[in-house]
């Protein structure tokens, strides 16, 4: 089960993290190093809340408690970027894997910006990805999207891709919910949502 975190009052700011299990072999004698990467790269975002009226904070505080047993979803902040809908974008073909995702249903000629986020829901879980390079839809509305991280699950054919309001889903790290409350204000502090898979 997952639920959506509040969107108001807005967070003061966010910190992004790209989580990998890669290690660098670094020979102590100065030889060339090598990076050994593992499967399962994914995103994490830290939400820094403002100090707010206690009444405004109540929904946040309740959800912080609820999030100790459920995953949460949160809209990916892309402030300053207008994620207009370039059509009804669907996965084009089953059994896809790797760092290219074929899609269709795009407005012909539409250009996907490098760095743009999108998400899709597969088997009840949201997976977040980012465009790793610019891509342009062809005249038939088809496009090969270069993405990071590599697909962790193969989306089914015609699955909807959410480019207009992508979300991240995961547990809030740590099993303790903590906040400060004094007089008529509360400070929810910072917490991190890390994709579970």
């Amino acid at each position, binding site marked *: 089960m997952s639920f959506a975190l509040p969107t108001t009052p807005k967070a003061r700011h966010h910190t992004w993290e790209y989580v990998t299990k890669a290690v660098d072999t670094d020979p102590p004698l100065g030889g060339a190093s090598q990076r050994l990467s*593992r499967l*399962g790269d994914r995103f994490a975002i830290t939400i820094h809340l403002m100090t707010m009226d206690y009444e405004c904070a109540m929904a946040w505080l309740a959800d912080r408690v609820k999030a100790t047993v459920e995953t949460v979803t949160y809209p990916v902040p892309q402030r300053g970027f207008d994620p207009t809908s370039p059509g009804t974008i669907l996965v084009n073909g089953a059994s896809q894997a790797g760092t290219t995702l074929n899609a269709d249903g795009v407005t012909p000629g539409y250009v996907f910006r490098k760095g743009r986020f999108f998400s899709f829901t597969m088997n009840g879980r949201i997976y977040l990805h980012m465009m790793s390079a610019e891509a342009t839809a062809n005249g038939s509305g088809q496009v090969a999207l270069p993405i990071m991280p590599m697909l962790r699950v193969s989306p089914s054919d015609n699955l909807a891709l959410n480019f207009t309001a992508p979300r991240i889903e995961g547990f809030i790290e740590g099993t303790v919910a903590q906040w400060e409350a004094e007089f008529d204000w509360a400070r929810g502090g910072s917490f991190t949502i890390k994709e579970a898979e």
Partner: protein
Amino acid sequence: MALSAGMVTALAAQEALVFVAVEIVLPGPVNIRLLDGPGSLTFSSKTFTGRDATYGVLAGVEALREEIGLEAPRLRLGVNPPSSSAVSTLMAEANQGSAISLWLGCVTRSTGAVVASPELLFTGFYDTAKTVAYQNILGVEIDVASDWERMFTAEEGARLNTSWHQSIYAGELGLDFVIDSLAEPFWGSKEPGETGTAGAVVPFGVGEIWGAPPPPPPMGA
């Protein structure tokens, strides 16, 4: 066996995307095929996933090393099952002798395809298992004996569990609740059970599989 040309090339690259795959074939047969990370990979007509809906995820694999063997090589691996029924299935006595294999492979990141052919690092059989429960860990730790041990087994098929024992000595309860009776045949010049000296096993602690040291015992314990 030599590494395939594809594996040699992949492992020589500046960045290599590697994975570990484990197959556990329990009686039934129940095929549990797990990867060490999220995703799904297919090779040798077998599909491995990062999370099995029934049996959970691979928590860890004991470090392997290759050297001249003076004792039988063994392997320990951990599984995080999502339910008590999965724990029960993984711990069943009838699992003793079940085939377990472990591969190391590489993935081509751009296509998500497995580089031919993953290296079969270990093949053995389920020896014993125990549950591991600490503050932030719930798992099943499976002790795997090498297939080579079969060469030293005078009585193939004999098991060290209470069901087998009572099938011969009905009512004899000496092996009731015994979970750690390893099959340890003599191998070369070393006594069985001395880890870290030879074979495939290196000194082993809980942290090596489960990722974190066990918490200290409760006060007053």
